[in-house]
C-alpha cells in the first residue's frame, strides 16, 4: 500500500511494526504510549501474531527475552518510568545477544514526573541504562513518517547484530497525527533464519540463551566480543541529517521533535540573512561524530537544544572536542521550547549575550514557563 494516511504516531508505529514482520508484542499500560498496545491488541492477531498484556513492565520485557530467544520478531513499548523498570532485562537481552525493538515514548522525570513530552531519557538510552558493559542502538525519529521508516530498519539492525534497538520518541511524536506512507510489507517467511534460537534440539545440539559467565576469563572474552560487535555498529549504523551544511555558520544540534522546532527557526532566521543550519542525530547511539567533522571547520559555534537540562550536549562536546563553542538551551518536564525562545537564544549566542558555554539557564523563560 502506498497511499498517504493520516494517523496518530503511536498507532502508525504499531502498524509499521506489523508491516515489518513483528508478530509478537508484549506490553503494560503507561501514558503516553498506550495506543501502541491498544492497536496491537486489535490488529496483530489478524496477522497471526500474539499480543500479551503482562502484569508489569518487568514481566513484559522478560517475555521479550523469552520470545526473542525463541526466534520471534518482537516489539515492546513503554514510556520512561516503565523503561526504567525494564533495564535489568535489557541488560540480560544485550548480554544474551537477543534481537528486539523497544519503543520509548518518553515523558518527563525524574520519578513519576509527568506525562508530557521530554527528552530526559537520553542518558539512560545511550549510556547503558542497566548494569554491565553493553550498548543498545537508539534511533530518534523526528516525524511519524521517519518513525515508520525506521521501524523496519530497527528490526533488521536488531537481527543483524543480535542486539536490542530502541526507537526513542517522545509524547509529542506518539500523540500527534501526521500523514504517513507505509513502507512495503516485509515477507516474514523471507526473513533470515535464527539457528541459535531455542526451538527444540531435534537433529542438532542443544541451544542455550544465556548471559552468565562465572569464569572471569570467559566473561572478559564475552565482553570484548560484544565490544567488537559494537565497533561494527559504530562503523555501519550511524545516521544523521545536516541541514544547510553548504553555507551555515551557526548550527543547531537537536533530535526528534525539537529538531523540527529548530527547522522553523532556521526558516525564519534565514529570511533575515542569518546563516544557520542543523545537525540532527538520527542514531543517538552510535552518536554521529562524523556529522560534526563535516561542519566543524565552517561553524562559528553550535547551539544544542533539548527537552532536558542538558544530556546530548555532552556528546556534542565530545564530538566537537573544544574546536568550537557549544552552547545549550533546554526546557524540561513537558515544557516544549517555542520557536521564539529558541530563536532568541541563538541570537543571544551570536551577539555575545550568553556569558559562557556552561550557561544552561533559560533567560528567556527564566527557567520557568
Amino acid at each position, binding site marked *: 500500500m502506498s497511499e498517504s494516511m493520516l494517523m496518530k504516531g503511536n498507532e502508525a508505529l504499531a502498524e509499521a511494526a506489523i508491516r515489518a514482520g513483528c508478530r509478537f508484542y508484549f506490553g503494560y499500560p503507561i501514558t503516553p504510549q498506550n495506543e501502541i498496545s491498544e492497536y496491537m491488541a486489535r490488529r496483530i492477531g489478524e496477522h497471526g501474531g500474539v499480543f500479551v498484556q*503482562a502484569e508489569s513492565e518487568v*514481566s513484559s520485557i522478560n517475555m521479550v*527475552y523469552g520470545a526473542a*530467544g525463541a526466534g520471534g520478531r518482537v516489539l515492546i513499548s513503554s514510556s520512561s518510568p516503565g523503561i526504567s523498570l525494564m533495564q535489568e532485562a535489557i541488560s540480560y537481552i544485550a548480554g544474551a545477544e537477543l534481537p528486539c525493538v523497544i519503543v520509548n515514548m518518553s515523558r518527563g522525570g525524574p520519578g513519576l514526573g509527568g506525562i508530557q513530552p521530554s527528552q530526559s531519557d537520553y542518558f539512560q538510552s545511550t549510556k547503558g541504562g542497566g548494569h554491565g558493559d553493553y550498548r543498545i542502538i537508539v534511533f530518534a525519529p523526528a516525524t511519524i513518517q521517519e518513525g515508520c521508516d525506521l521501524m523496519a530498519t530497527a528490526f533488521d539492525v536488531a537481527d543483524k547484530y543480535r542486539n536490542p534497538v530502541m526507537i526513542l520518541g517522545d509524547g509529542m511524536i506518539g500523540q500527534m497525527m501526521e500523514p504517513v506512507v507505509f513502507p512495503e510489507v516485509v515477507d516474514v517467511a523471507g526473513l533470515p533464519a535464527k539457528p541459535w534460537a*531455542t526451538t527444540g534440539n531435534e537433529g542438532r545440539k*542443544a541451544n542455550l540463551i544465556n548471559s552468565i559467565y562465572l569464569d572471569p576469563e570467559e566473561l572478559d572474552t564475552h565482553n570484548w566480543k560484544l565490544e567488537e560487535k559494537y565497533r561494527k555498529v559504530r562503523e555501519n549504523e550511524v545516521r544523521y541529517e545536516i541541514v544547510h551544511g553548504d553555507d551555515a555558520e551557526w548550527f543547531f544540534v537537536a533530535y526528534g521533535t525539537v529538531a523540527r522546532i529548530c527547522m522553523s527557526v532556521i526558516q525564519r532566521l534565514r529570511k533575515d540573512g542569518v546563516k544557520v543550519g542543523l545537525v540532527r542525530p538520527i542514531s543517538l547511539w552510535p552518536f554521529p561524530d562524523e556529522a560534526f567533522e563535516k561542519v566543524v571547520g565552517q561553524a562559528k559555534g553550535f547551539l544544542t537544544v533539548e527537552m532536558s537540562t542538558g544530556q546530548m550536549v555532552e556528546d556534542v562536546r565530545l564530538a566537537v572536542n573544544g574546536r568550537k563553542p557549544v552552547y545549550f538551551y533546554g526546557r524540561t518536564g513537558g515544557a516544549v521550547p517555542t520557536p521564539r525562545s529558541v530563536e532568541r537564544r541563538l541570537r543571544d549566542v551570536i551577539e555575545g549575550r550568553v556569558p559562557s558555554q556552561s550557561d544552561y539557564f533559560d533567560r528567556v523563560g527564566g527557567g520557568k514557563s
Partner: protein
Amino acid sequence: MIPVYTRPKSLTNVVTHYCPGCPHGIAHRLVAETIDELGIQGKTVGVASVGCSVFAYNYFDVDFQQAAHGRAPAVATGIKRVTPDSIVFTYQGDGDLASIGMAEIVHAAVRGENITVVFINNAIYGMTGGQMAPTTLVGQKTTTSPFGRDPKTQGYPVKVSELLATVKGAHYVARFSLHNPANIQRAKQGIKKAFQNQIEGKGFSLVELLSTCSTNWGMTPQNALKWLEENMLPEYPLGEFKTGEGE
C-alpha cells in the same frame, strides 16, 4: 548384560556442581526421565532460574534459556507464545519463585499459560549462602534469621501451592516431597502429569517438590531428610491441590 538403570537420554553426562546429598540431582533425574518417557526431548525448552539450579542447562540435554531472578515464568511465556509446539518448563527454587518472582508465577497461572513449573522448596536461599526465604519455617535459623524466623517481624511461611490453587487459570497444582523413595516415586508421577497436561494443552501446571539443603541447614544429608519429614511436612502438606477440570 541388560542394563536396568541408566542415565536418562535427556541428562548430559557431566558431574554436577550440586553439594553432596542435594536432592536437585533427584529432581533433575525425574524431569529427564519424564522427558524421555514422553518422547519430547527434541521439542522441550527449559528455563533456568537464579539460585543453585542456575546451571541446570548444563545438565539437561535440551534447549535452554537462562532467566533473570524470578522471571522464569515470564521468559517461559515468551517462548511458549512464539513456539506453541515447544514443551516449555521452568525449574525454580523458593527464593526465586516465592519471593522475587511472586508476581510472575501468579500471573502466569492467572493467564493459564500452558507451561510446566518445577518448583523446588527447601525453605532457604541456597546459592547465596543460607539466607531466610519466604518459605523458611517459623523458628528456623538462617543467616538472616539467626535467632529463628520470628513471625512478629518476619511473617509466616508462604504456601505457594495452596495460594496458586485459588487461581482459576491454574490447571494442576500439587506438592510432593523428595525425602524417601516412595515419595520420590509419587513426585515422578506428578511431574509426568504436569508435562502431560502441557502436551494436551490443558494449561498451567506446577509441581512443588519439598527438598533439603543440608549445607545451609547445617546438617548431614541424612539428618536433613529427617528434618524435612518432621518439620516441613506438617507445614507443607503433600497432595494435589488442584486438578482443574476444564477451568
